[in-house]
């Protein structure tokens, strides 16, 4: 086989197993360069990386969305009349690919979603309203494993919802709003989660650090930010923090012995009284770890405050700013370590710089409250994009490079969406560019094949 470096300088393919190849957008198979078919047995398909998004919604459906690659601007041909061009464009307009997994059922609404890597296979974990935790295959939505968290949807009033879900190194972490923290070892193939701690009621969020998965942060209504070490909570390790040496005047010795502070690494202190000397109420709605060493945390409150805590420095927040006048419902890590994204109850989705406390960006275009969002890198041009999912039933992608923060893409998904997760390692077979092929095909077919290449010089 000839090495056609001039022709295929742009394509880079890697061996892909058949289970990973997704049906290409256009089902037509085009015959390529009939002239060159003399030399090649087959033209190898081009694979390129494209983002795949998984959304969960209130009706319990999990949808996978792949946006089509942006179509290159075609040069207007003078010979072809204008109508033909439009028709061609309409036929070729690449369609949005949406796969729906599951059936409509309000009891099985999706609350949280997370990735799990089990036996080198990427699986999607879906935590549902009725306590079910399902491990799904991202390709076809089939349920590989199903478990139950018994602390969710308890009692006649159906109290308890998922406030945290994550998976690392074979351990599944879930947390419920009535304070039950579970850290389950998946090796033993359990049917329900194992509770390691009961941290009290009225929690609104619980997160583990992305790399140090034994560090847990919780916060809630009238529950200040607390950071725990789950190894100590679950009893895997003993409490290694040294006992205070000078015990004459400090009550720390007695505090350490209290049951509720077992495993605590950090307990935040409320800010000083406000200008009327009244206690500032506490209601943390969402929190995030923002650095690698698990030293910095950002919390958002119901009283539209955003606070940054540094565990090693102080118990009171390092930064405390008021943002807008509606409660902030969710925050997420932004395009770099210094930025976080926030969303309130109206259609505001913005970014704040946590060093200065100023709003640096607003992502416009939403008509309803954003329920889940994250930043990710767009492989096509290596830029950061913000993916958001909202109650107005749309998935939106905003670019972050220019000051316009344009809406790149949106998809109507028919349900009130509650969760989003991005699959960055998804490869798709590129359908060969047809326009050039069809023309050249006709050109080559019309040419007569001559026997000799040289013009007969002799008269």
């Amino acid at each position, binding site marked *: 086989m000839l090495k056609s470096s001039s022709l295929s300088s742009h394509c880079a393919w890697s061996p892909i197993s058949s289970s990973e190849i997704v049906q290409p957008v256009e089902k037509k198979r085009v015959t390529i360069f009939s002239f060159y078919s003399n030399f090649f047995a087959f033209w190898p398909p081009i694979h390129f990386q494209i983002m795949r998004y998984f959304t969960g919604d209130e009706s319990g459906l999990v949808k996978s969305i792949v946006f089509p690659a942006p179509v290159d601007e075609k040069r207007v041909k003078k010979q072809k009349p204008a109508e033909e061009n439009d028709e061609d464009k309409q036929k070729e307009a690449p369609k949005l690919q949406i796969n729906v997994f599951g059936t*409509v*059922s*309000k009891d099985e609404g999706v609350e949280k979603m997370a990735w799990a890597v089990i036996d080198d296979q990427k699986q999607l974990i879906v935590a549902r309203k009725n306590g079910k935790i399902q491990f799904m295959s991202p390709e076809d939505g089939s349920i590989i494993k199903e478990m139950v968290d018994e602390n969710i949807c308890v009692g006649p009033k159906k109290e308890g919802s998922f406030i945290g879900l994550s998976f690392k190194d074979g351990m599944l972490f879930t947390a419920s709003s009535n304070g039950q923290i579970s850290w389950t070892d998946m090796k033993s193939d359990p049917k329900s989660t194992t509770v390691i701690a009961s941290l009290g009621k009225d929690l609104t969020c619980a997160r583990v650090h992305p790399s140090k998965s034994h560090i847990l942060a919780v916060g809630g209504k009238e529950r200040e930010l607390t950071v725990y070490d789950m190894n100590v909570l679950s009893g895997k390790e003993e409490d290694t923090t040294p006992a205070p040496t000078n015990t004459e005047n400090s009550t720390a010795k007695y505090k350490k012995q209290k049951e509720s502070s077992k495993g605590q690494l950090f307990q935040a202190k409320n800010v000083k009284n406000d200008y009327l000397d009244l206690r500032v109420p506490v209601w943390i709605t969402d929190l995030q770890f923002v650095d690698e060493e698990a030293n910095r945390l950002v919390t958002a409150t119901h009283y539209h405050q955003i606070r940054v805590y540094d565990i090693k420095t102080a118990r009171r927040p390092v930064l405390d700013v008021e943002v807008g006048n509606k409660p902030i419902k969710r925050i997420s890590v932004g395009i770099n370590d210094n930025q976080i994204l926030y969303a309130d109850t*109206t259609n505001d989705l913005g970014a704040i710089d946590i060093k200065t406390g100023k709003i640096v960006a607003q992502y416009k275009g939403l008509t309803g*409250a954003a329920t889940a969002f994250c930043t990710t890198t767009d492989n096509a041009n290596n830029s950061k994009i913000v993916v958001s999912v909202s*109650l*107005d039933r*749309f998935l939106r992608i905003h670019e972050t490079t220019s000051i316009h923060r344009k809406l790149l893409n949106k998809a109507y998904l*028919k349900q009130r969406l509650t969760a989003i997760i991005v699959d960055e390692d998804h490869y798709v077979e590129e359908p060969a560019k047809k326009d050039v092929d069809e023309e050249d095909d006709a050109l080559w077919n019309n040419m007569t094949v001559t026997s000799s290449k040289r013009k007969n010089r002799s008269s």
Partner: protein
Amino acid sequence: MVKTDVQGISAGDIKNKHKREDIYHRQKAEKAKAKRERRLQIKKEEDKNPELKETRLKNNVPKTIDNTREKEDTFVEDDEEVAQEEATDEFAQYFSGQTPKILITTSKRATPACYDFCAEVMSIFPNAQFVKRGEKHEMRKIIQFAKNREFTDMMIVNEDNKTPNAITLVHLPDGPTAYFKLTSITPADKISGHGRPTAHQPEIILNNFNTRLGHTVGRMFSALFPQLPEFEGRQVVTFHNQRDFIFVRRHRYVFKDTERVGLQELGPKFTLKLKWLQKGTYDRNGEYEWIFKQEMETSRRKFFL
């Protein structure tokens, strides 16, 4: 004046005012004459051959804002998934037989204008009760009281400067809350030739609620009325959505023969415009499913309902 041919002359270049006026008016008259003759000719041809008229009308449909409306992604068009979701939404109980029970109240410190409007609104909905708004309880408590007494909907008429200006419609157990701007209220007395409404359950007409948001709002309205209308009352309440304005009218109809209907307007008429739709019952800090902001008005041809 000498009668000359005025076709090629540009009346604007003539400096003499009398002459200029004369030329201009004659040109205008000639144009009108030519148009009249053309139209007369077309009419003659179409009288002979009515097909020509049909083809002419078909080819010359004028473009209006309504028929050049921007296509919305959220248009509902025979979608099974949307139908399934609607079957299990907050109004599912109503559509499987629950009779509506409506509580009407006002904002605090209402004036007689507001009470008059509330009295008329009470006549529109069978099974509606009015409660005077007191000073003591806040909205959250009132909603809890209504839930305890098994009301299915609550309507709060807001007043500003002695005129009602907004309606908050809360669907109870935990349904959505919609806030409408209320304008152009005409009480029944001011409608000339109006009829007197009776207590029969009316039929409902919901026009033009096309998008998913429109469906939710339309279902909210239909959940205010009992499922089975009493046809002998011949009353109909219409919620007509056009360009995001919802016109609410009430009529009594009578069939004169198989093709013609007579309509007599009853009761108040008013216009509503959706400002926001909140998920769950009315909560100042609840999440909004749809909220109108000025920045959303990107084009004259974009509508949301």
